[in-house]
């Protein structure tokens, strides 16, 4: 089966050094120019298969949202390629990108910020339909919007209302409707339920899963909520400091995490009826992505780090179970 999306060795770095004056430093009596670069995504390679839900998890600052935005063409990668069904999309101009936008859509975290407060729901939903299907007449556009609204559980009689008149859950339904209204194949959902209450989260997750079943959608799902990810994903990718630590089928990865970071991350999930304090403790904090550690990015906090981990970055290795792990200790059989 060919992948719907191929991410090949992507780097995304942000230069935050500011103007030339901000970059100048006095260093031992000499003026030097120093650039500060945030290395958000480093050498990520991933393939997303049609019809699956691939979730990217990790703590804040691990580069998961940057990866999502780079995939959507909202950022241009510094290195590497992104292929959609075998065609390269990372170097396209926005007009060349337009046909792909009907196929690839995005749902954002905060439905308060991602819906224009000055547009009615109808305007919000009609805009993408008109843009991508200029041949449709008014009634057809109208019908399409009404159908999608019904599908996501927002009564079309509310279509003349503005976003602020809806609750958070309803707004997220409208955001999902906006993505679905152009009949995409592939949806990037960046923390779509993080801003919602538990009972509403379940409604939105069910809606996303139903839409996937009906339309054969493929999801790239970005989340920090591990129990949600465990539930909805077919495969999971764990990121740390912009690098992929472990990637594999969700059931296998959750049952049998191999990478020390994955193990620590999963042990921290609060469990109903569990007791606090049973998690694997990591020493220190996540380093800044400005000065990446040499070798394995996790070595400073890893209980299994050896000499090799400090100098040589581990290459991803496919294990027998089908899980891909980037860890020297696993490769050497130490854990």
């Amino acid at each position, binding site marked *: 089966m060919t992948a719907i999306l191929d991410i090949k060795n992507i780097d995304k770095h942000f230069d935050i050094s500011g103007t030339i004056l901000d970059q100048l430093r006095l260093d031992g009596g000499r003026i030097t120019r120093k650039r500060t670069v945030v290395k958000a995504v480093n050498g990520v390679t991933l393939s997303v298969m049609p019809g699956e839900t691939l979730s990217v998890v990790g703590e804040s600052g691990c580069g998961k949202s940057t990866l999502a935005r780079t995939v959507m063409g909202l950022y241009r990668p510094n290195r590497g390629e992104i292929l959609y069904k075998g065609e390269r999309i990372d170097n396209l101009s926005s007009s060349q990108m337009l046909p792909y936008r009907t196929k690839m859509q995005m749902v954002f975290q905060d439905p308060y910020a991602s819906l224009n407060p000055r547009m009615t729901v109808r305007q919000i939903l009609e805009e993408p339909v008109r843009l991508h299907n200029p041949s449709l007449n008014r009634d057809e556009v109208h019908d399409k919007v009404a159908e999608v609204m019904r599908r996501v559980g927002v009564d079309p009689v509310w279509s003349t209302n503005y976003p602020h008149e809806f609750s958070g859950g309803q707004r997220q339904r409208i955001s999902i409707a906006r993505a679905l209204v152009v009949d995409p194949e592939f949806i990037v959902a960046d923390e779509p339920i993080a801003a919602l209450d538990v009972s509403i989260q*379940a409604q939105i*997750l069910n809606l996303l899963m139903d839409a996937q079943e009906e339309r054969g959608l493929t999801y790239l799902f970005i989340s*920090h909520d591990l129990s949600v990810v465990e539930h909805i994903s077919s495969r999971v990718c764990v990121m740390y400091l912009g690098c992929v630590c472990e990637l594999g089928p969700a059931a296998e990865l959750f049952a049998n995490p191999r990478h020390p970071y994955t193990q*620590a991350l999963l042990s*921290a999930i*609060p469990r*109903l*009826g569990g*007791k606090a*304090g049973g998690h694997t403790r990591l020493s220190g904090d996540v380093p800044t992505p400005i000065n990446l550690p040499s070798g394995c990015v996790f070595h400073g906090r890893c209980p299994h780090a050896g000499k090799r981990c400090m100098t040589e970055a581990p290459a991803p290795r496919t294990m027998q179970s089908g899980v891909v792990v980037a860890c020297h200790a696993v490769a050497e059989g130490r854990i």
Partner: protein
Amino acid sequence: MEPLIDIKNLRVDFALRSGTVRAVRDVSLSIGRGERLGIVGESGAGKSVLGFSIINLISKPGRITGGEIIFGGEDISRYSYEKMRHIRGNHISMIFQDPMMTLNPVLTIGTQMKETILAHMDVSDEEAEAICLDKLKKVYIPSPEKRLKQYPHEFSGGMRQRIVIAISLLTNPKLIIADEPTTALDVTIQAEIMSLLLELCENENMGLILITHDLAVVSEVTQRIAVLYAGKVVEIGPTDRIIGSPQHPYTRGLLRALPQMAEGKRRLNQIPGMMPSLLNMPKGCPFQPRCEVRLDRCLREIPVLTKAEGGAQVACFRCQGGDQ
């Protein structure tokens, strides 16, 4: 045994232009010495207002309009500002959601900690510093002497929340109210903070009111849970009992909506609809419009908390044996 704090029929109103919003509706709760109580509910359930009202931190136009909060034999809900300050500093502390908002960015950690000590205790500057160091060690801040001279921005999010906890411990309070203390933090940091809070409460025999929307977090730390819906306690009881066999349809719905409870099914159980606006409450039981096991009686009368199995109390006519 006499409870540490006894809240009776507490009522908090917000007088808005569009009408009076009753955010806390006749809530009665008590918490024993060294007991850990969780208050769970969704946004708008009134859980934070309830927590804030205990130490009278509600800002205008909110006001306690009824009920009592008995602490140390006195009703503290009617205390003057000065008397309340004494309670807040010495006996009850509060931990807020966002540690960056709680700490003053232009003062060092040491200054902020000493400020609290000197306001409440008659000690010298050296003694105050010794107390600071002791508390920082308790929350596992490495090299506390150096850290005292640093500013909040020099700490990570998890470290900042540890500092906030250390500050709340300075006066050896009997009760800590923690309002969503880990919501802004990553899951690994959350695990650290929660195990720290649990350890401190157990070691110091300190009471804890943990306000959160996360049932899993609350189940790991507390001994009792109160479930709040639209300003009312709908179910309260021992943690195992609430998690293991919830009775109220709302509690059941909340638990079943969690992916952990899906038991292999793909679709999650969802509660239809949303919480009613406090300005426009439904007649009868506040949960009635969303309830799948509603009775005729639920449309007319408001159920009150009644004893149920396993030491719990439930406010639901269905749980009380139907439509008699």
